[in-house]
C-alpha cells in the first residue's frame, strides 16, 4: 500500500501513525494505514461512508487500540496511552456526533476544557488570577467561534448546529498540538460552517490538523494535503490539485456521488 509520504515538508513530525490495522472480529476496518502529520499540517481525510475514517480518528485519539502498528506523538510511542493521556499530551479530537455537556451552560462547557488543560479541574479553590486566566481563555475560545453571546445558555437547549460550535469550542479551548476534527461541519447550517473554518484558520500555524469532512468545498478550502481512504485503506494521497486530477479517485469517490464540482 501507499506508504510513501507525499508531505515532503521539512517541518518536524507531530503525529505519525505507522501501519495501523484494526479488526472487529473478522471485519478488517483499518488496513495498514500510515499517516504523518507534520507541525502545521492541514490534512483532510476523505472517503466514502464506511471507509474507516472515524475508526482511524478513534485509533489516533486512543478510544480504540490498534491491532497492529503504532502511533507516535513527537517521536514518542503513545500507542498504549488511553484517550485522557493522549489529550493531556496534546492530541485533541472532536466527535462526529455532539458530545457536549448538555445540562451545563456554554460557558461551563468550555470552562471544563480550560480547567482540564491547566490541570485545575480537581481544584476546590482557584486564586483570583487563576480564575481570571480561565475566564479569559473561555471567552477567547467562544469568541473565536463568535458564540460569546450564548455563553450563559444551557447547551442542551440550543439548536444542534449551535451545539456543534460548542463541541468545536471545547477542542479549541484545549489548545491542542494535534487536532482531529471529525466532520466538524456536520449538522451546521451552511451559513455558519464558515465560522468553523475561520476558527481553524486562526489556529496557531504549527498546530497539526486532520479534518474529516464530506463537504468538498470545505475540504478544498482548508486542506494542503488530502488523504483518500477506501475500504479501510489509503487509496490515494496528494495535494488538492493532485487529488482533484486523479482519475481513479474521481471514479471511485467523486464520480459516483457527483461531489466533484462542489456544492
Amino acid at each position, binding site marked *: 500500500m501507499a506508504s510513501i509520504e507525499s508531505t515532503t515538508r521539512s517541518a518536524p513530525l507531530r503525529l505519525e501513525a505507522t501501519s495501523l490495522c484494526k479488526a472487529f472480529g473478522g471485519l478488517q476496518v483499518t488496513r495498514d494505514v500510515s499517516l504523518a502529520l507534520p507541525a502545521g499540517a492541514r490534512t483532510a481525510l476523505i472517503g466514502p461512508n464506511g471507509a474507516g475514517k472515524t475508526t482511524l480518528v478513534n485509533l489516533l485519539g486512543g478510544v480504540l487500540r490498534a491491532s497492529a502498528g503504532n502511533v507516535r506523538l513527537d517521536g514518542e510511542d503513545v500507542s498504549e496511552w488511553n484517550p485522557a493521556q493522549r489529550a493531556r499530551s496534546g492530541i485533541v479530537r472532536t466527535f462526529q456526533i455532539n458530545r457536549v455537556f448538555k445540562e451545563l451552560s456554554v460557558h461551563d462547557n468550555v470552562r471544563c476544557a480550560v480547567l482540564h488543560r491547566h490541570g485545575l479541574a*480537581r481544584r476546590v479553590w482557584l486564586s483570583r488570577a487563576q480564575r481570571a486566566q480561565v475566564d479569559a481563555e473561555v471567552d477567547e475560545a467562544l469568541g473565536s467561534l463568535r458564540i460569546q453571546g450564548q455563553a450563559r445558555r444551557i447547551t442542551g437547549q440550543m439548536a444542534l448546529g449551535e451545539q456543534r460550535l460548542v463541541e468545536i469550542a471545547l477542542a479549541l479551548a484545549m489548545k491542542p498540538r494535534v487536532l482531529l476534527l471529525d466532520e466538524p461541519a456536520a449538522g451546521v447550517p451552511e451559513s455558519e460552517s464558515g465560522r468553523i473554518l475561520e476558527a481553524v484558520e486562526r489556529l496557531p500555524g504549527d498546530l497539526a490538523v486532520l479534518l474529516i469532512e464530506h463537504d468538498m468545498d470545505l475540504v478544498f478550502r482548508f486542506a494542503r494535503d488530502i488523504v483518500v481512504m477506501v475500504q479501510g485503506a489509503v487509496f490515494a494521497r496528494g495535494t488538492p490539485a493532485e487529488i482533484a486530477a486523479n482519475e481513479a479517485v474521481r471514479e471511485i469517490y467523486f464520480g459516483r456521488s457527483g461531489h466533484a464540482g462542489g456544492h
Partner: protein
Amino acid sequence: MNTLASSLAPDAPPAPAARRWRVPLLPEAFIGLIGLCAYWLFTDDVGLLTNMVIMSMLALSLNLVLGQAGIASMGQAALYGAGAYAAGLVALHASPSPLLGLGSGVLAGALVAGLSGAVLLRAHGLTLVMLTIATAQLLLELVNWRRDLTGGDDGLSGFSIDPLFGVFEFDFMGHTGFFYALAVLLLVHAALRALVDSPFGLTTRAVRLDAGRVESLGGRVYAQLLTVYVVGGAVAGAAGALSAQTTKVASLSTLDFHLSAAVLIMVVLGGTRRLTGALLGTVAYMLIHHIASGLNPHHWLLVIGVVLVAVMLVLPGGLLDAWDRLVALARRDKEARHGEH
C-alpha cells in the same frame, strides 16, 4: 437564538448567579434560622428534630454522590453505620470527647467509602447498585458477627459523651444534641456548597453527564468519582457519629438496607440537582412519616409511596422543581411589569 425566551422557559435552571458570593453564608443562615424556629415551635419534639438534622446530613452525602457525580448508590447506610460504630467504639474504649468521636466517624465513613469505592466504582449501572447494596450487607453481617466488639443486634451502648467544649452537657432531653447536630449540618452544608461551586464540582457534574467526554479532555474520571465517593463517605460518617452520640447507641439499624432506601427516597423526593433538594426531601419525608405513622402505624409507607408518585409525576426534578417554577414565575412577572414601562 432567542436568549430571552429560553431563559424564561419553565425548565430553565436559574441563571448562574455571579452575585452568589456577595452574601457568602446566606443559605446556611437561612437553614439555621429555620432550625431555630423549628426548635422554638416544637421543643417537645426535639428528638425528632435532631433526627431530621442528622438524616439531612446523610441525605446531603447521597445528594453529592448521586446528584452531582451520578453514582447510583443504595448502600449509603454502610458509610453512615461505619461512622456510628466508630464514634461509639471511640467513646467506649478511647475517649468520651464528642469532637474526637465525630472525627473518627468522619474517618471511618471516608475509609469505608475509599475501600469499597476503589472496587465498586469500576462498575456501572445496575452492577454498581448491586455492589453498593452488597457492601452495606457485608458490613452489617460483619458487625453482627463480632458481637464481642459491637454488641451485635443489641447495639453498641453504655458509653458516655463529655460535655461539648467542656461546657454544654448532653442532657437527657437532647437540647444540646440538637444544636450540636445543627451546627455540624451548617458547617457541612457550607463546605459541600463550596465544593459543588468549585472547579471540582464542575468536573464532577461533567463526569455524570458524559464521562467519556471528560476523558477526551484529559480528565481522570475514576479518580474523580472515588474522591467524590470518599467525601460523601466522610459526610455520611459524620452523620452516623452524630446519631450515635446523640442517642448514646449505635445499632444494626444504622447499617440496614431500609435506611439506604429511605435516604434514596428523600434525595429523589427533594431533587438531586442541587444540595438544597436533600434538605427539602428529608424534611418532607420525615414530616410525612411522623404524621402518617401517628395516624396509622402500619400503613405510613403507603402515604410516602403516594406522595412520591404524585411528586414525580408533577415535578420530575423533585420538590426543587416547585421552587424553581415559583422563581421563574416571579421573574416572568417582574419582566412583564418592566415591559409595561
